[in-house]
């Protein structure tokens, strides 16, 4: 499998009125299997937008994202479904990662329903997630507002892992967390990567986090991406 971005550009406000402002242009990179690509830069430079484009939530103004050699915009339905399973995204704010009106259990079962897993298999999968993320079983019965940011971020990762992804876009996964929790989450991410061979696209404004996690990295500045030695 491969995930590659080629000459991505994105403009804002390029509607009927034209005169769009370019956020970034000609960004290309490739995610290597089992490795982490770090993306840093000051906020407001479109790092998150780039992340959303890679994970298919938004579309670029120019250029394309290639999954297994096929461009995202011209994919067949079956292919798109595998893409949707294999490329996941994790967001910055853990407090709204789960639907506040549902117990954690339901949010997780929902994903299992999507995968058509049920019965004993369902319980096994849920237990497995809790084991990898190191959370007690009682969190399943809680509502998101009753859990701490660190716990929610772990659960968010666990829920993504259910889908058995190959690529995860991490959009500032720890910047809303405390330092000690940040350290825990980063270690968890590293362990998961070592065990399951997932590649990460790590987006962060914190250079220390990027240096700690990434195998290669790029900096987005003034709309251009430069590769940086780690």
């Amino acid at each position, binding site marked *: 499998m491969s995930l590659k971005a080629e000459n991505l550009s994105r403009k804002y406000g390029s509607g009927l009125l034209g005169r769009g402002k370019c956020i970034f242009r000609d960004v290309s990179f490739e995610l290597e299997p089992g490795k982490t690509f770090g993306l840093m830069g000051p906020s407001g430079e479109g790092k998150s937008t780039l992340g959303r484009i890679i*994970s298919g*939530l938004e579309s670029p103004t120019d250029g394309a994202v290639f999954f297994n050699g096929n461009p995202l915009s011209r994919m067949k339905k079956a292919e798109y*479904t595998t893409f949707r399973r294999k490329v*996941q995204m994790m967001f910055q704010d853990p407090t709204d*990662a*789960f*639907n506040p*009106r549902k117990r954690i259990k339901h949010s997780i079962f*929902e994903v299992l329903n999507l995968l058509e897993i049920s019965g004993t298999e369902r319980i096994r999968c849920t237990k497995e997630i809790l084991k990898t993320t190191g959370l007690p079983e009682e969190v399943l019965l809680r509502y998101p507002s009753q859990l701490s940011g660190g716990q929610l971020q772990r659960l968010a990762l666990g829920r993504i892992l259910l889908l058995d992804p190959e690529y995860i876009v991490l959009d500032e996964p720890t910047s809303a967390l405390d330092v000690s929790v940040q350290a825990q989450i980063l270690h968890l991410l590293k362990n998961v990567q070592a065990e399951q061979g997932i590649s990460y696209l790590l987006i962060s404004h914190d250079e220390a986090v990027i240096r700690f996690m990434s195998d290669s990295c790029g900096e987005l500045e003034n709309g251009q991406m430069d590769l940086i030695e780690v």
Partner: protein
Amino acid sequence: MMQEEAYIRERPRKWKDFLAHNLNLDIRKYKRNLKKLNRGGLFLFTFFLILALFPSLFAPYSPTERFIPYEAPSTAHLLGTNDIGNDILSELVYGARISLMVGFASASISTLIGLMIGLFSGYFRGTPDELLMGFTDVVLIIPKIPLIIILGAFLHPSIWILILVLGLLSWESIARVVRSKTLQIRETGYVKSARCMGFSSFHIMVSDIFPNLIHVLLPKFMLATASAMISEASLSFLGLGDISMKSWGIMLSFAFSRGGFIRDMWWWYLPPGICITLCVMFIALMGFGFEGREKENGKRGVDSE
């Protein structure tokens, strides 16, 4: 004497001062009162609801049974009788069902339409949004009451037509509120990750967005009910109601046209008027209460970091 004057002159200022300095406190008190009102509204509204559901338990006679007309209140007829000898209390009790039904049925229709249109245009944005919101604006400018008068003149006046027209013409504000809320929820992490995980749009709308809209819809629904009841009463009073279904509005209309006012029979025209007012007030209070609670929750959400 002088002191007294000064006292009188100063009082409003002191009061204002008090407000300014204790603004927090005042708002709190106000909120607490609101909660109480909400509970009171709920309680009394339940009473009306029971009245509407089981009228036979409360009404002393059947509403169609005839006695001596134009009778003053007595132990046999607590609120007297009307021009054709029906017991007014019984009529009143049976009328609750019809008035409430009109209110709830048309509010349900309008909430449903508003919800669907708002959800759709908020979730998909872009062209569908523009089209639907344009349509909403068109509906917004249709004058409701004149339209119903015209329809009433051409069609046989029926309660169902009334419900339908009231329902079909009053969903714009609900649609707008739902749309703006949906636009907000759409950008939250859980909707984005649900999209990432490949849930269908329908699933996201039903299971992620809708539950977070309920607390906005509920007060809106209540207010729509109250306003539909008022519209029904005023239309019935104008003689456009359905005579076969005696609602409170029609009772008022009869009291007016069949000599209740002229003979000064307050027991005929006053009770339905009071009932309409109270019922609408309770429903509105409940709606405000829900709204207030939602605001508090929203605030706590921001604060609880």
